[in-house]
């Protein structure tokens, strides 16, 4: 079979003018010849590029025609002439082949409205959970995290205390047990429980409603308690508060005034600051709680560093000083070869005081060196993704496009991806990879999560994990040793001349970026496939809220 004939048939395939005989002939070629398959991909990519231009151009022209055309009195129904061009639809079992067969249409998904998360109605955040001390929630199986965005809705706090910052600026310390409903960015409903609110000027009018009365704040600090049994109380510590109840007129309460409402009767009582948890007291409780969590995690973290297969383990702990190097604590680490920080900065991790690296700018990255090839590999990380740009985000990426190179990343659709390059050096089509279901969605942004991908050479299978649970696995067809050599965390470096062959232009333009936007506070690479149980233990020990059982730490050792 000649290359010319292959090209001819491929061109006819993409124009959908193949005859039955030609289809059979092309199928035979594609099955028999790796070269033919490469040519398929090559043509598919160019076809996709032209289609992407066509989509953009069509949209632009359509917009222009709408702008220039005078509007008719009654707009006629516009007949949409566009139609979906049929391209091969692979079965779910060969999900990866979907890209191959439908490579041309794959770029339809570059249209933002087709992105999976854009189909959902995104909840609008009205507040942020800023601090938490021993909080136990009744309504969230995975717990709520410091830094988590909160949409309107109920918070069922069984015990502990939290601080909530409303978007307009009001700050509330809520003590459990409490039933609290976020209504807007400047109002809430207290079903039961106790809160203390600080209301700066921009949040003037912050309102706490209950079933019996409402408290409207005019730039002050107040406490409100609504016990399950007993009379509600309102205490004003600073400024002015309006009490709206069964009386037709609003009663004003000033500094150091307090009232108790008993069966529609309002009685004056002494104001008591000490009955309501302050920001400072909450911070103290949080610190005490965190110390216990950190101690348990430190013990487990050391066990991971000492794992016989540990190649890289960065925990971002210890004295920082002015150094821009991060020690690799793995016992098989290359001596004298720490991770080098480029651009990125230290910040808080899962807990206050736990170190993490924050990646924000396109050039932010950690650079490392890990010589050698490995039959199997485990990649683990605790991270917080802050945004979902319409592009991939790097986690652990070998430089360039070398045979055996490993890529670990978050796809533009929020899936966890693990790829191994099995082609010739520099061949942009040489990847075999597996993506999980979408894990990172607007709902998980800003939350700390534990992810892992395990490639087991014995079964030629990669398995992805999310918060300790296996979430998908697939065979990769890898017949080479896995390598990282020089690699990056949070970014990807290509060798000179490889950028645009991989569909990427150098980092000077925004759409070439593939940097992570978020934080990592622990990352490890091991040369052995950790078991599902070991991954679960790694998660259990590191998760934010509930303390890890001592037995788990011992097991990891």
């Amino acid at each position, binding site marked *: 079979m000649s290359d010319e004939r292959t090209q001819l048939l491929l061109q006819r395939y993409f124009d959908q003018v193949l005859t039955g005989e030609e*289809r059979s002939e092309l199928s035979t070629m594609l099955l028999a010849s790796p070269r033919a398959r490469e040519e398929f991909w090559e043509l598919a990519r160019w076809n996709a590029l032209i289609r992407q231009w*066509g989509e953009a151009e069509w949209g632009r022209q359509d917009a222009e025609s709408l702008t220039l055309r005078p509007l008719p009195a009654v707009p006629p129904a516009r007949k949409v002439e566009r139609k979906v061009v049929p391209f091969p*639809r692979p079965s779910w079992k060969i999900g990866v*082949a979907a890209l191959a*067969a439908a490579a041309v249409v794959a770029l339809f998904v570059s249209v933002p409205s087709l992105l999976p998360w854009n189909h959902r109605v995104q909840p609008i955040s009205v507040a942020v959970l800023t601090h938490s001390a021993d909080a136990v929630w009744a309504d969230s199986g995975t717990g709520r995290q410091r830094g988590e965005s909160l949409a309107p809705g109920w918070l069922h706090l069984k015990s502990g205390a939290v601080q909530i910052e409303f978007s307009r600026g009001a700050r509330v310390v809520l003590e459990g047990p409490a039933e609290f409903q976020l209504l807007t960015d400047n109002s809430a409903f207290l079903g039961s429980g106790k809160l203390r609110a600080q209301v700066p000027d921009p949040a003037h009018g912050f309102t706490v409603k209950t079933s019996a009365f409402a408290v409207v704040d005019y730039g002050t600090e107040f406490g409100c308690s609504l016990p399950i049994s007993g009379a509600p109380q309102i205490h004003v510590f600073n400024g002015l508060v309006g009490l709206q109840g069964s009386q037709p007129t609003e009663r004003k309460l000033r500094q150091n005034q307090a009232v108790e409402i008993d069966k529609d009767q309002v009685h004056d009582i002494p104001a008591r600051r000490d009955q309501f948890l302050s920001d400072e007291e909450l911070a103290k409780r949080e610190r005490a709680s965190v110390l216990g969590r950190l101690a348990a995690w430190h013990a487990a973290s050391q066990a991971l560093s000492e794992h016989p297969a540990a190649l890289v383990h960065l925990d971002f702990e210890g004295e920082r000083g002015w150094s821009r190097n991060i020690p690799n604590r793995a016992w098989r680490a290359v001596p004298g070869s720490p991770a080098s920080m480029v651009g990125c900065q230290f910040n808080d991790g899962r807990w206050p005081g736990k170190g993490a690296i924050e990646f924000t700018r396109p050039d932010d990255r950690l650079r490392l060196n890990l010589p050698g090839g490995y039959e199997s590999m485990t990649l683990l990380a605790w991270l917080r993704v802050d945004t979902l740009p319409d592009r991939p985000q790097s986690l652990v990426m070998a430089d360039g496009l070398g045979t055996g190179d490993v890529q670990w990343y978050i796809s533009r659709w929020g899936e966890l991806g693990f790829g191994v390059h099995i082609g010739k050096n520099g061949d942009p089509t040489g990847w075999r990879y597996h993506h999980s279901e979408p894990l990172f969605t607007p709902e998980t942004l800003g939350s700390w999560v534990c992810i892992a991908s395990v490639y087991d050479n014995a079964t030629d299978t990669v398995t992805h994990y999310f918060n300790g649970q296996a979430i998908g696995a697939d065979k990769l067809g890898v017949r080479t040793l896995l390598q990282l050599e020089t690699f990056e965390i949070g970014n990807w470096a290509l060798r000179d001349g490889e950028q645009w062959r991989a569909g*990427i232009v150098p980092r000077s333009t925004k759409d070439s970026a593939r940097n992570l936007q978020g934080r990592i506070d622990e990352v490890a690479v091991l040369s052995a496939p950790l078991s599902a149980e070991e991954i679960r233990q790694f998660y259990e020990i590191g998760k934010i809220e509930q303390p890890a059982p001592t037995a788990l730490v011992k097991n990891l050792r």
Partner: protein
Amino acid sequence: MLQTLEKHAPVPERLAPEVLEALASHGTAETWYSEEQIQHLAKCMEGLAPKARAAVELRYQQAHRPPEIASRLGWTVESVHVALSRARVFLRDCVTQRMLAAHP
């Protein structure tokens, strides 16, 4: 989108599952296109002959298949296919040259 494709894709035009599987073995991880490439492509479009450009626009902007393009332009289906094939080769070479010139 895939459901739509499945609904509309004529069965005889699909490749067999084993072919798709073989293609998948050469799949690329995350290929995407830069704004720069699109801009070069837009420039290269200007280098196409008017009739070839019309065929490309009908195919890639309005998603018509070659038989419909043929009837609109008064060509044969084969002529449409040949024009599209040549246009793709021209555009590929043009964008490649422009990218190489921009990133020597």
